[in-house]
């Protein structure tokens, strides 16, 4: 197959793919309305294409991309479940898609009503007392939550809490968010069970601890069964407990963060609540808190006053604003559509079936690959490619070989505390047939590693491009199209 052209490379002066409204006001020359010194000297060199050129180009690009609709996508910790089509339709209703955030509240009561109901429903699902929909994504929610915790401590005159505890298995966003919020990160070790090492936690928690950030189930897919004791240790030291909701697809209707002792929770609506992921976003990362943190929630919050919804800006202790307007409303509409479709009973089944699917795959694969934690997992699990590495084949090679079978590979080399890690999250929307076919492919690859390792080492064989030279990309960065640039081969 030939190289895919860039849209700039099919540009031809004179072609257009737009259609402006008929002019109804005087067409005064730009030079008469603005001083020449303010005007652009050169036109913006955007591509000039016809509408069909445009459609063919982006259709060709879409054909070079793998989504959940294309095939199985068991990317651990990302919850790549089916994205219901009706959600897309609902978000595109003119009354949701074409409303301005600064319209008088009387003219957007339906939107505010939806937000209010979503806040309430997420509070129930997480066991928290109040929810803000403002954060744009998971990492943004983490930072928001940590700023709330900072405000809480400061309001009590407690300025010595400069540290945030983060387990070694945590997502990279946790320590990064702690830094952006102005905290130092202290890493808590995992024990041989893959869980928080209680002794290490107790050693590190103290009167300088602002919070412990925890994902439960953790990134190994294991439930932190000492959670009650962990919460007690952190609370007794005066710290707060932060729940990273990336893995909440495992716990709906099973155990709520609020009941586990967490004070602040973020949810990734693009994961558990069918977002969709959009090739990397937009997401939505609502944050829920317990009673004592409510005063610090960012402004505004949607409130119900009798039969009318209002935006409450009168929040003197709030951390301020974390995002313009009210968050990623369009994503929140999709999540609301999903929650109403499933209802409480449906959501509870979602988590149970996600857990069963993950355990089934673990059971089928643990003979051929090392399972560093051979206990029942929750919605995801990790394998180690240690045995294959000893034969000269790395986890990266296994991931690339999976491409030949039409699958998106699992998350690899994360969490960091598992050697040659392979992290698999099937989700509840995949059928047993799909799980079986994927497991068959994994077992075949394990066999290939032993018998015909070159097949794996040289994979992928069937994709439109082969492995990329990432070193070249980083050493000589080419980050934009330049008309006269030569492609270095």
């Amino acid at each position, binding site marked *: 197959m030939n190289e895919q052209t*860039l*849209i700039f490379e099919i540009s031809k002066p004179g072609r257009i*793919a737009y259609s402006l409204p008929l002019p109804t006001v005087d067409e005064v020359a730009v030079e008469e309305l603005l001083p020449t010194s303010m005007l*652009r000297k050169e036109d*913006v060199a955007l591509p000039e294409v016809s509408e069909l050129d445009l459609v063919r180009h982006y259709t060709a690009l879409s054909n070079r991309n793998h989504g959940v609709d294309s095939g199985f996508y068991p990317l651990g910790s990302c919850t790549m479940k089916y994205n219901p089509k009706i959600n897309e339709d609902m978000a595109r209703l003119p009354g949701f898609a074409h409303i301005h955030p600064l319209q008088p509240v009387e003219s957007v009561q339906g939107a505010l009503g939806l937000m209010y109901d979503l806040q309430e429903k997420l509070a129930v699902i997480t066991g928290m007392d109040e929810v803000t929909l403002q954060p744009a994504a998971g990492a943004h929610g983490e930072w928001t939550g940590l700023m709330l915790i900072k405000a809480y401590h400061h309001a009590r005159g407690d300025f010595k809490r400069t540290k945030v505890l983060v387990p070694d298995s945590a997502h990279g966003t946790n320590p990064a968010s702690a830094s952006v919020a102005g905290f130092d990160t202290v890493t808590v070790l995992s024990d041989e069970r893959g869980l928080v090492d209680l002794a290490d936690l107790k050693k590190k928690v103290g009167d300088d601890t602002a919070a412990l950030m925890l994902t439960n189930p953790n990134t190994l897919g294991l439930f932190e069964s000492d959670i009650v004791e962990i919460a007690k240790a952190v609370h007794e030291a005066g710290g707060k407990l932060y729940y990273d909701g990336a893995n909440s697809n495992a716990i709906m209707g099973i155990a709520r963060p609020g009941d586990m002792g967490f004070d602040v929770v973020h949810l990734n609506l693009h994961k558990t609540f069918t977002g969709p992921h959009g090739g990397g976003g937009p997401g939505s990362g609502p944050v829920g808190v317990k009673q004592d943190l409510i005063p610090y929630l960012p402004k505004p919050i949607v409130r119900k006053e009798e039969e009318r919804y209002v935006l409450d800006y009168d929040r003197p202790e709030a951390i*301020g604003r974390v995002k313009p307007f009210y968050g990623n409303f369009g994503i929140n509409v999709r999540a609301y559509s999903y929650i109403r479709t499933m209802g409480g009973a449906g959501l509870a089944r979602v988590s149970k079936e996600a857990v069963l699917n993950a355990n089934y795959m673990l059971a*089928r694969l643990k003979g051929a690959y090392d399972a560093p934690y051979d206990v029942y997992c929750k919605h995801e699990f990790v394998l180690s490619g240690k045995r294959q590495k000893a034969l000269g084949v790395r986890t990266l090679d296994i991931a690339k070989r999976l491409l030949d079978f039409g699958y998106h590979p699992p998350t690899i080399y994360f969490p960091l505390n598992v050697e040659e890690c392979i992290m698999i999250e099937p989700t509840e929307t995949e059928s047993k047939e799909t799980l079986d076919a994927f497991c068959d492919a994994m077992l075949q690859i394990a066999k290939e590693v032993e018998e015909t390792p070159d097949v794996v080492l040289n994979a992928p064989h069937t994709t439109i491009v082969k492995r990329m030279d990432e070193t070249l990309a*980083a050493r000589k960065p080419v980050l934009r199209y330049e008309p006269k640039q030569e492609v270095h081969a």
Partner: protein
Amino acid sequence: MDFRYLPMTAEDEQAMLQTIGAASIEDLLADIPASVRDNGTLEEVGVPLPETDLIRTLSKLADQNMNTKQYPSFLGAGIYDHYAPAVVNHMLLRSEFYTAYTPYQPEISQGELQAIFEFQSMICELTGMDVANSSMYDGITALAEAAMLACAHTKKKTIVLSDGVHPEAHDVVRTYANGPGLNVETLALEQGVTRIDQLDAIEDVACVIVQYPNFYGRVEELQALADATHARGALFIVSANPLALGILEAPGKLGADITIGDCQPFGIPQSFGGPTCGYFTTTKALMRKIPGRLVGQTVDENGKRGFVLTLQAREQHIRRDKATSNICSNQALNALAASIAMSALGKRGIRELATRNLQTAHALKQKLKQAGFTIVDDGPSFNEFVVTLPIDATRASQQLLDHGIIGGLPLGSYDAARQNEMLVCATELRTNEELDQFVTALGGLTHE
């Protein structure tokens, strides 16, 4: 009850449990302490809704909102009612794009990677900057991230914001600054534009941030502001409306070290303020400090051109607490929407669309002046400006609703001295007739 998103049958469940060697799903949950188990609280979430009932329920909520397809809107202030070519939505619905995640596996993600590379290229063209990233949450959080970058780069602790920057950006920057304990100072406006001489009185300046055109609609003289900023050894940051750059000189040509903004004008619906799509650009010198994801061109084993995520050593999943930002998910799908819209417009269309905005807003300005209204700090503007009304602008906007018009933004809630002022916007979608209706309605405002 069966759910159309859940394929597991009773038979599947039994077969799977048997392979696992468990008697029931409950066995798989036995490690969860009984004291934290949920006892049916999800019932409060309500009963499942069939598709038709869901459509009815959500349509009812949507219909309670006055949408800008039905009512002419004069609101801007960061979110705009623009023409979106029909192809944008059709291409966005290609599910290979919207059901994918971050392109971690380049061999099966070349479509998304190339689309981002093209987005980065178009944004560089538009802003005149060297490097653009793959997107930020929105223009305002991009602005806050730019301020954080400037403080880290200059090792200075004061962020200076013009009062001509969006008030919500002031709020967001203050929240961000509270994390590492940075200072925020402001520069007042004089006759509608930033007074840079006030910078002399501010110490330890990391950056100066202005908006282009500014929040009140005026086009700032960037080069002079840039020179004064650079004389203090600080970075000059411009928040630019990308559509205005169809006719206004690019910030990259006028001394900007960082240009950020929001691509919402390009094919992204207003959607009650989000999701939009922030863009972030800078110079080659600051390339390795840029937040978020970057796509770079490279070759595969056969020498074939392709694209990968690159310079990842800046990012949270590698660098953890030392990362340049905590951003992970961004606004990829909306960056795609913006790319498609920019490609549809092309070289000529972006200039024509920008020109039409300028002309429509100018026409409205003239009509208001003729009707006896005062334009506040009148001067060079794009598609927004401020008008003084005879009554409180919040009350005016209520009365406009009765005429079926979504009025401009009352400024009293941002600045008590501006109680009677309204920030109005007229895009290419406003017709001459709608402009007349608006002016007539404003002429008929009552003190009741």
